[in-house]
Each structure stands twice: as C-alpha cells, then as structure tokens.
C-alpha cells in the first residue's frame, strides 16, 4: 500500500485502494481419498475441459486437487506477452481466450500448475471460479475442496476501518486487531472508552493526534462502566442512538475496575463492554493480573527454585458477568473473527442491559513469543480448550465453538516463553485447571441452556 504525507503534512494516508475482497477456493492439500476424481469430472462437464487436476502421489501419500490460486500478483499475467491475463476487481485472474496465442509462457511461469495449455484448442485454460459457484466444490463430498466466502467477514464488518493514522502499538498486537475488528463491526455511531493501558493508544491517541474517527474517552481504570453509565444515559436522553462501547484490558476489568463493572451489570446499564484479555499488565511490562493463566511467568510471578510462575487459576470474569444475569455475555478470540463479529452483533442488539465480551487477545511481547504469533496462540488456546468460546443471554449459556477433541496442551504452551518452563507435572496441573474451566462452562450450558430471545421463560 503506497503511503504519502497527508494534508496535515505530519501524517501518512493510504492512497491506493485496498485489494479487492473476494471469496476463494479452499483446498485441504494432500488429504483427498486416493483415486477420487469427482472435482475433475464435474469441472470437465461444466466447462468442457477440466481446469482442476487431481494429483495422486502414492509414494508420498499425497492425494489432492490442484488448481489456480487466483494469485494477488499472478506470475502468469506478468509472463503473458499479449496481455491476455488480467486480475479483476473481484480477485479472479481471468484469461481472455481471444487474445491468447497459445505460446505457453503462462503455464511455464506458474509454479502451481494453475494454468495449462489445452491440447484441443491450443489455447491456455484456467479456473475462473465459475462466477462464484464452482462446479468442483459443489461436487466434492469430502469437504477437502470447498468454496469459502472469505468476503462474508468483510461484509459483516461493513464499516470503515476506525483508524485515521498510524497506531503506536507493538507490531503484531492482537489487541489492535481486536479493536479494528470490533469497530468495523460496530461502526462510527459509538463513543469508545479506554482506560490506561495499551488500548488508550488505540482509542484516544497521543497528545493532539487522535488515532480514531470515534469520539473517545480515556477513563480511569477505576470508573469505566460508571462513566459509560452517565454518557449512555445522557445520549439516550438526548435521543441519540450512539452506543457507549468500552475496549479495556483485563487489569482494569478483572482487578481494579471490577466493582463498577459489577454495579453496571446489576443495574442493567445499556453499555457494551469489551475486555481484551492479554492476561496481565502488559503496558507496564507484563505483571500478573487475576486473569493470568496458572503457571505463567510474569514479572511478578517469576520462575525460580521458590516459585514456578503464577500459583492461582485465572478469574473467569465472563462467567461472573453471566452470573449477574447480564443481558449478553460472550467470550471471543482474535483468532475467530466471524464468531467475534456475530457476538458483537448480539451485544449491540442487547439494548435492554449490559453486554460484556471477553476477547482473548494474546500479547506476544508479554508472553514472550514471536511478533507474528499472537493469532496462532489465540487459535491454539481455543483448540486446546484453554479458552472456551461461549455466549450467554440472561444467564443462559451455549458453547459457540465446542472442542470435542482438544489438541494437546503442549501445542499451546510451546508457542510462548511464559509457559516454556513448565515440566510434565506443571503441564498436567495446568491441564487439570483448563479442563475444569472447560467442564464448568459445559455444565453451565447443560444446566442453563441458551434461549433465543423472546422464547418462553426468557426474561
């Protein structure tokens, strides 16, 4: 994306349009049943000639479909001497049969076998996704080849990006991703509340430089929901539809600012409170909070002969909020944006009380992980049951992403330095705490099952 100084001189503004959003063929490589040719046949039938190949490499147990990946910077296009290949706005790399002279330069340039020369016509041939209803995917019964509406999330997050300029957070910060996702879903008719911590740089900016287009309040750590109460009530009183939305960390939420949150939930204030949980005071250099995972190394729960990280299990703030009978409560993760977006929609719809979303947002800095690890850590937290995804309306629960077969805990713990000291015993102890938390949520879902709004028995 090209950047140039904006009108203010001291800012940079994007000048190129973002790449077109598109849906995509998703192929799980090498996992097809050997000998299956359903996709190839369906394509040949629909398009006259098959534009998808089935690879059967028995020696390496690789069986899978191969077709054009609709590259962002297609090598075939660049190699074509006649300009017969263009990348359309939709993201489809399209071949113009009329202009093709059949030289084969494209097929030579593509490392993926995504474009081939058709012996019958003497022209190139490639997948054009059948206008969004690909015959191959419709024919695939195993799900190894699927048509994924990757643009659905973008459509769901239909509002413009909330940021006006660069954000001074660590590169790869999951909190920033969570904030961006949240306000692309919520839109600009909101007042955003932050508290001292990394999120104040997201919501409020620094000095006279505002980072977002949103009206924002840099609250105290001790009074976010109470300030929101006053603002939300006054906005309603003045007839505005503007929502009060908090985006604050776990220290504020679970520790020093829990009392007003509990009060606002009990009173049923019509506010949306998003806690981004990075399990500690990351802005001040990674001290433990009450949501820090058991066993985790922080600056205040060090590892040494006398102690092996945090001794206590995390406070399950989301469950506590649900036990208030809050209008809507959910856990979400930066790794599952569709789920997060759907929950944001339900949170906004719950105008009759407090909506609380506990967003898992690993801090790779404080958790001692590589810069690009935060989302993967978050995904592993979900897949290992460390962080269950669920929601509750008025104290009625359901798991939104049940994990029937959890991945081994080591797949999660191995991704970050803060847990690397855990030996087998340590991992087992952590595993027991993780299972207990997950089973508690399962039990709540069974005992107090979710009810659709308006259903009998709902409040």
């Amino acid at each position: 994306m090209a950047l140039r100084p904006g009108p203010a001189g001291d800012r940079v503004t994007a000048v190129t349009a973002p790449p077109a959003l598109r849906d995509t063929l998703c192929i799980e490589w090498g996992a097809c049943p050997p000998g299956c040719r359903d996709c190839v046949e369906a394509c040949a039938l629909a398009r006259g000639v098959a534009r998808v190949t089935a690879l059967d490499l028995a020696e390496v147990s690789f069986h899978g479909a191969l077709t054009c990946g609709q590259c962002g910077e297609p090598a075939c296009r660049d190699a074509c001497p006649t300009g017969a290949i263009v990348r359309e706005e939709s993201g489809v790399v399209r071949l113009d049969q009329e202009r093709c002279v059949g030289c084969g330069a494209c097929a030579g340039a593509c490392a993926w076998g995504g474009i081939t020369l058709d012996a019958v016509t003497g022209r190139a041939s490639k997948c054009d996704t059948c206008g969004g209803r690909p015959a191959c995917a419709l024919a695939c019964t195993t799900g190894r080849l699927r048509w994924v509406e990757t643009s659905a999330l973008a459509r769901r997050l239909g509002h413009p990006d909330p940021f006006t300029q660069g954000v001074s957070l660590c590169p790869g910060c999951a909190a920033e991703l969570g904030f961006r996702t949240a306000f692309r879903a919520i839109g600009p008719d909101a007042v955003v509340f932050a508290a001292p911590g990394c999120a104040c740089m997201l919501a409020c900016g620094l000095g006279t430089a505002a980072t977002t287009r949103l009206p924002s309040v840099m609250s105290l750590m001790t009074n976010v929901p109470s300030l929101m109460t006053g603002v939300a009530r006054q906005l309603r009183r003045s007839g505005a539809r503007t929502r009060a939305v908090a985006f604050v960390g776990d220290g504020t939420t679970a520790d020093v600012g829990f009392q007003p949150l509990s009060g606002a939930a009990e009173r049923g204030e019509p506010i949306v409170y998003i806690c981004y949980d990075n399990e500690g005071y990351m802005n001040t250099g990674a001290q433990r909070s009450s949501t820090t995972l058991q066993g985790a190394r922080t600056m205040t729960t060090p590892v040494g002969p006398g102690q092996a990280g945090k001794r206590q299990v995390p406070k399950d703030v989301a469950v506590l909020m649900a036990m208030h009978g809050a209008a809507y409560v959910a856990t979400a993760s930066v790794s599952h944006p569709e789920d997060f977006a759907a929950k944001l929609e339900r949170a906004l719809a719950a105008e009759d009380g407090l909506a609380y979303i506990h967003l898992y947002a690993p801090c790779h800095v404080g958790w001692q992980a590589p810069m690009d690890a935060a989302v993967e850590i978050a995904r592993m937290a979900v897949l290992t049951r460390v962080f269950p995804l669920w929601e509750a309306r008025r104290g009625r629960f359901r798991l939104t992403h049940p994990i029937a077969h959890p991945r081994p805990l080591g797949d999660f713990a191995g991704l970050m330095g803060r847990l690397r000291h855990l030996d087998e015993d340590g991992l087992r102890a952590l595993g027991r705490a993780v299972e207990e938390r997950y089973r508690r949520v399962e039990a709540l879902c069974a005992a107090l099952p979710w009810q659709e709004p308006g259903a009998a028995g709902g409040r």
Partner: protein
Amino acid sequence: MTTTALRVMDGNKAAAVGVILCRPDLVASYPISPQTPLLEALYRARAEGRLEADTVEVEGENSALSAAIGAAAAGGRAFTATSSMGLMFMYDAYLFASGQRVPVVMTVATREQSAPHTVSSGQQDIMMVKDGGWVQLIAESCQEILDSILVAYRLAEDPRVQLPVNVSYDGYYLSHLSEPVAVPEQGAVDRFLAPVGGGKRPVLSAAAPLTFGAFIVGDLYAGYRYKHCQAMQAALDLADGLDGEFLAAFGREYGGSLEAYRVEDAEILMVAMGSHSGTLKVAVDRLRDEGVAVGLARVRMFRPFPRARLAALLRGRRAVGVVDRSVSFGWNAGHLFVDVKAAAADLEARVPMVNFIGGLAGTDLRREMLEAAVRTTLARGRGEPGPEVVWLNLE
C-alpha cells in the same frame, strides 16, 4: 425579583429543593451520612414525578461522581452528593472531573475523616480536596445551601469557568437542622440558569468526535494546567458580580466570594467559614455591644481563594483570629489559617494572628467559646504572648 414561599426544612432538604429547581438530567449517588436524606429526597421526588432526572443508584461513590461526569461530558446537567470517606473514595474521579473540565455540581455534607472513626461533623473532608481543582462554595445556612446550588450551576456552566463545583455545608449542624427557607420560583430559577453563552461547550457526540481525557506528554500539559488556573480566576472574578445578579433575581445577597460582617473600624477581624460563622456573628454583635471593635470575614468561596479581598480586609487590623474545623497535619494548624496567613503575606505590615481549632467531630463551638476566642485575639493584638494555635474543646 419574585415572591417566594417560606418553608421550614433542614439543609439536606434545602439542597434537594435546590437541585430539583435546577432540573438536572442525571442524579447519581451512594448513601453516606450525613448526606443520605438529600439523596432520599431526590429519589422520592423522582418517584413522585417532581424530578425528571435519570437517577442512578451506584455501587460506590467513585461511580456516583463518574456517572455524573459522564452525563455532563455528554452534554447533560449532572448532580451528585457525598460526605467524608465517600469523598475520599471518589478522589481519582474528583481530579479527573476538574482536569477534564466537566460542569458537575456536588454537594458535600461535611464530616470528619476516619480514623479514628466517627460520623460526626467537621470540615476535614472538604479540606482534603481543596487543591483538587474544583470551585468550592461553603454555606452558612440552609437558605444559603439552596441558593448556592443555583449559583454553582451558573458558575460551572459558564464557558469562562467550565469547572465542577462543590457546595459544602456542615454535616448535622446544617444537614439535619431545620430553618425557614425561601423557595425560589421555578421560572426565576430557569431564567437565572439560562445557558450562558448559548450553552455551547464541547460534548461527546458521534456527529463531532472529540477525545475526552486525551493522553498528554510534555509542554501541552502545562497549557492545560495554566488554562485551569485561568478558569479558577474567572470563577473568582464572576462570583461577586453573580451575587448582584442573584440579589436582583431572588432578593438575597451573600457578598460573593467573601462576606464582610461588621468590619467597619474593626480592630479585630475574625475569619471563618461554614455554620459556626453564624455563631461568630452573634458573638461579634454581643462584643460590639460591649464596645469591642470586632468584625467577621466569612469565606464563602474557599477555592478559588478570595486572596485579594481578604488581604484588603486584613489590612490595618490589630489582630486576626481564624476559626478552623479541620487540621493541616505538619502545619499543625487549621487549613483556613494557613491560607489566611498566605493572603496576609501580601500586606506591607505584619498582622498578629491566632488560630482556633475546634468543633472537631461534632463538638459544639458555643457562643461563649467563640467570644473567648475574640477576647484572646484582642489580647494578642495588645501584645500578650500565647501559642499561635489554640485548641478549643481539647480533652
């Protein structure tokens, strides 16, 4: 000037009547003695349809003030009330309110601080926040409580001021003691509170996004502090003129930031604030009858401090006596005394001063004690030695 009805009510009730007349948008409060009856009166008025405000029964004082700040930040008129430890529990929000320049009004029915524990009257609580950047009015009577609330909103919402305002009154002595109070007419109050300067101030709105409580580093910070001081000065400058406007509208006047009582030719000047000023006035009257030339300077506006007007009153006195109901530890004197001494530093000639600390934890400052205090001051003026700080009712 409008005709008004006289009703007998205690200070909390008078405060409630004043608040209702100001038509707030939001009232948030948490119970604490001795302000609780005020809160109850407001919630009752709300239930009976005499108060249109949104009421929020918060879970603590920090939240009470914070909800009020939020409503004011979104353009509303907000009210809250507290006392003693409640005021301490909202301290971070207290500083946030003034730094953020939101026009919240909060009454404080003053009370001692724990520990030692007591719920009795005293001015220690409000003195603990004197440098917190709020405008602070301190009433002498139930009537003045009501009237000061109207003045408080006028000052708070004036674009030249735009600061939160405290109206303090002595717990129990005023909060629970009944007096006849003239209740102004709603129309007159509405006119008095008509938005100054069109009521335009920066508010939270999605249509015109602003950042409240921006994160500041460096030079810009001094600019905010400097403007805050300018707003304080503006409040002081406006207070005296506002007193005349109040007289025209309601037929009562108080002297603006400072009330001068029988100060003409006074050899001795007493300085005080709050309900015992009334007792001091009686003492002054009686001693004047005996031929003692004594007067009283009653500080109505403790912040901003009416330094110049007070210095003018101090000038040329033989001695000055200051009565405090709070203690500044380390100075080991009363808070007002320390400030009066600072104001006296502007004078060319030194004035002997003596401080009387009394009335702590609700002990009575009786007329005889205050008369004795005047006599002590008089003796100091004649050169008799004695301690600078005299503790009244010391066990």
